[in-house]
């Protein structure tokens, strides 16, 4: 009897203690709405591609965010500028990192030299307009509102002042991360990447300050699709980096205003994707879809050193509109994962059932004059070369060398012939820039190669001259030259 009563009491106390414990401190029952706010601190904001350090706090706090709107002319591509409207002076805007349960006091400052009123709609806000209503700010003023970070995740923020489309098209978007109370798993490198489009009056690459073009924005036909606000923002010495074996996390957003991104890293498989920036994780993903005004957190391990290209796999956007970036992975090779090329030899299947079409069957016009050669060459260039070397011959910085005003070509036109007939790999220097890519051998006749190289020599500020089919044949025989 006595024992039994004791036992009951014991159970009762134990159960109630458990209940209280879990109610008060258990992390599963963490309630972001009622979590105690301890202290206050200034949020550290970073410009892309950088991300503020992970949050060490294990309590909610009052987090003060100061964000200044600045309208300024910025680089969109080489020789091309655009008047960007920015959150914090960069496109995309500064990255904000907070913790679930934080009380975020948001200060929006509109620089006095700005021309227009602005506001901010943070998708991380529960409340009308996501804060837009409370932050409508004339130039030279500051507005403040406070919201509680109730839902963990990666959220887009953007300006929602009329005309909204124009404010977004001019660069007014960024990302805010609300870390879950228990934090994110530790990784070695974190980066901030945001895709967006620009609608300019001039065509892709047309030099000078380019105004916004309303009609092409309405038609959803951008001249530029870029990562982090400009063509080549993360190329060459600005590439994002990691070391072999690093765990990398990308916070990827899409500012739009119109297109959905098919986000892909060439040569990587995402081990984990928090698709749509939410809680759910998909594993082993090749390409993840990021809607305009949406995000994803992707994680992967960089097992093999080398350059990895970030693209929108709607691939013309990558090679023709600028949606390219580089992740440079350093370290020792690991042949257990990737060997690199081990063999390159002639392949002759037995029986020879599949053969190249006999060259004679292709209707290749024979150029009678150098003018014809140039004209035919132009056609070949547009169908074969232009995708990488661009319509204006400017190439793509860090990836594909320019053929315009090219010292590499002009010093020795045979190099051009060789690149076409033999392909080209390894390091070359063009106009002072180093390129280390691979150009595949092109399946073109001597006549065609002569035409296209002659076209190059006589266009794009090159030195002029004519290449004949005999020259091409000579270089074919001679083997690759650099």
């Amino acid at each position, binding site marked *: 009897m006595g024992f039994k009563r004791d036992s009951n009491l014991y159970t009762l106390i134990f159960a109630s203690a458990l209940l209280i414990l879990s109610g008060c401190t258990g992390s599963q029952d963490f309630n972001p709405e009622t979590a105690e706010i301890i202290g206050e601190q200034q949020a550290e904001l970073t410009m892309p591609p950088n991300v503020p350090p992970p949050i060490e706090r294990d309590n909610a706090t009052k987090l003060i965010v100061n964000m200044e709107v600045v*309208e*300024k*002319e910025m680089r969109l591509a080489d020789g091309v500028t655009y*008047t960007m409207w920015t959150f914090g002076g960069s496109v995309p805007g500064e990255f904000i990192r907070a913790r679930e349960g934080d009380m975020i006091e948001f200060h929006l400052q509109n620089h*006095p*030299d*700005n*021309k*227009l*009123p602005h*506001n901010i709609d943070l998708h991380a806000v529960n409340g*009308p*307009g996501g804060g*837009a*209503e*409370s*932050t*409508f*700010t*004339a*130039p*030279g*003023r500051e507005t403040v509102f406070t919201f509680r970070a109730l839902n963990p995740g990666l959220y887009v923020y953007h300006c*929602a*002042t*009329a*005309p*909204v*489309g*124009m404010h977004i098209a*001019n660069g007014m978007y960024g990302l805010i991360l609300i870390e879950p109370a228990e934090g994110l798993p530790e990784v070695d490198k974190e980066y901030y990447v945001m895709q967006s489009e620009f609608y300019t009056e001039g065509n892709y690459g047309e030099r000078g300050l380019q*105004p*916004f073009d*309303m*009609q092409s*924005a*309405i038609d959803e036909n951008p001249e530029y699709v870029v990562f982090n606000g400009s063509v080549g923002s993360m190329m060459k010495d600005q590439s994002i980096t990691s070391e072999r074996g690093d765990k990398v996390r990308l916070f990827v957003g899409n500012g739009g205003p119109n297109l959905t991104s098919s986000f892909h890293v060439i040569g990587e498989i995402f081990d984990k994707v928090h698709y749509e920036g939410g809680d759910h994780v998909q594993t082993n993903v090749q390409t993840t879809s990021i809607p305009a005004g949406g995000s994803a957190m992707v994680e992967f391990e960089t097992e093999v050193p080398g350059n990895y290209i970030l693209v929108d796999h709607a691939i013309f956007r990558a090679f023709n509109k600028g949606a390219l970036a580089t992740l440079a992975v350093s370290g020792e090779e690991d042949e257990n994962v990737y060997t690199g090329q081990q063999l390159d030899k002639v392949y002759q299947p037995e029986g020879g059932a599949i053969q190249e079409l006999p060259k004679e069957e292709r209707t290749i016009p024979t150029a009678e004059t150098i003018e014809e050669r140039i004209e035919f060459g132009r056609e070949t260039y547009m169908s074969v070369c232009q995708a990488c070397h661009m319509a204006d011959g400017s190439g793509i910085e860090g990836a594909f060398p320019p053929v315009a005003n090219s010292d590499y070509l002009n010093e020795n036109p045979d190099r051009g012939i060789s690149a076409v007939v033999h392909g080209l790999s390894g390091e070359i220097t063009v106009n002072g820039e180093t390129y280390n890519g691979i150009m595949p051998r092109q399946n073109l006749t001597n006549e065609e190669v002569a035409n296209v190289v002659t076209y190059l020599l006589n266009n794009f500020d090159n030195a002029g001259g004519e290449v004949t089919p005999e020259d091409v044949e000579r270089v074919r025989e001679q083997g690759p030259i650099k």
Partner: protein
Amino acid sequence: MNKAFYVVTLILCGLWFSAAAQPDGMVLVEQDTFMPFYSSNDDSITVKPFYLDIYPVTNAEFLDFVKANPEWRRSRVKSVFAEDGYLKHWAGDLDLGPNAEKIKKSPVTNVSWFAARAYAKWKGRRLPSLNEWELAASASEEKPIAGRDKKFVQKILDWYSRPNPETLPSVGRREANYHGIHDLHGLIWEWVGDFNTVFISGESRADQGELKQFYCAAGSSAASDIDKENYAAFLRYAFRGSLEADFSVGNLGFRTAKDKE
């Protein structure tokens, strides 16, 4: 013959009369009808004839005003009428500062609506109404209503999307428009008397009612006459919607208007 002569004389007299009555530094904007960009088709607005300043009010002119009206000096102005940044680009109450020569012919900015209104009153004039301003500003160099003129509209849009220069240039450096008025576009924003009739809240996407087109203008194909012109006007209306009467903004000035007797 005689009758025709009589009529011509009358018209000439009338012209002379109206020219003579023209107030100093102003021109007459004739009665006209225009379509504000947010309107549906039957909502065109007719504006009665009025006089409008040829140039925006300059720093030098505003200096005369504060000299004559000490209560509008920077140090004395009541905070209910002008917030802290009032005339902040001046060095002192009556001092345009080291750039005086450069800015005296530039438009005065950093003035509140109350101050602009007081200036106009002092001159025996008033601020133009929003519709008057919009009518006058829809004229290109050649046409009184140029809303469909792509080049005209693009020039306005380009200015809207460029940040302010460090110091504002003098007034009158651009060509006058059809009415002979300068700088309605491309130099500063301007206060209008009824600026607070614009119902753009911070949450532009939720603005309801008669101004529904504000957000539809972002490319609704249903509203076929919504084009770039509307985008330029859209930006102006949004700007006005962000203002309160005591604000002093670095690129916001004004000009005055007057009824035609």
